[in-house]
């Protein structure tokens, strides 16, 4: 059995805006693309019981998460006629104002790119075993809840 090439999704710490810019730039050679849709998750400084979140520390069930990301990739390519798809998720500590999720879809026409991007983000939020620990200024914490 051939071993599938697994795309690397997790990055250590925050995803930099420059990295997003560079990812976009790489697509200028793919001249059949007409539309890119990008989603970025940014860490919010929520205030809970008077304490402000200063960072989120992400952990995962790595083996299962990698498999889940791969399943989402395959399902998305099956459902939408995309030229490209890229998913990056932070692992470890990401400060407020920094980016922890980067989903990037490209296709000939806009509706496919947009729908696919939204589909991926929703599946990541509900199906991938990743946990965010919200760290407050005083170093106390609470576990993040996705809605």
């Amino acid at each position, binding site marked *: 059995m051939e071993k599938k090439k697994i795309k690397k999704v997790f990055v250590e710490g925050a995803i930099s805006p420059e990295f997003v810019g560079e990812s976009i730039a790489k697509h200028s050679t793919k001249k059949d693309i007409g539309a890119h849709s990008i989603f970025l998750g940014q860490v919010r400084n929520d205030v809970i019981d008077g304490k402000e979140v200063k960072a989120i520390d992400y952990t995962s*069930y790595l083996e299962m998460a990698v*498999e889940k990301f791969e399943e989402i990739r395959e399902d998305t390519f099956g459902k939408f006629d995309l030229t490209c798809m890229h998913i990056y998720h932070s692992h470890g500590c990401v400060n407020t104002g920094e980016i922890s999720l980067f989903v990037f879809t490209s296709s000939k026409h806009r509706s496919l790119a947009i729908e696919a991007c939204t589909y991926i983000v929703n599946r990541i*939020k509900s199906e991938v*075993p990743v*946990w965010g*620990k919200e760290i407050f200024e005083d170093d106390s914490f609470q*576990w*993040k809840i*996705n809605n």
Partner: protein
Amino acid sequence: MEINILTFGQITDITGKTSFIYSDINNTDSLIKELTKAFPELTSIKYSVAVNQQLVHVNTVLNDKDIVALLPPFSGG
């Protein structure tokens, strides 16, 4: 027979360790019962169970070397 238990997120806060081993447990229901006995706080939290990285929603037979993960609600992104 050995079953490997993995814990994550707030479950680890309760169990105090990220992995441990149980012996002579034949299915997930029995395992949950044993775990709840050892860590009563588990009843206060919602979590899913994965056997060898697959979520299971009904009582599932366990075999030697199976990996059972206790997964609190996901909060990635």
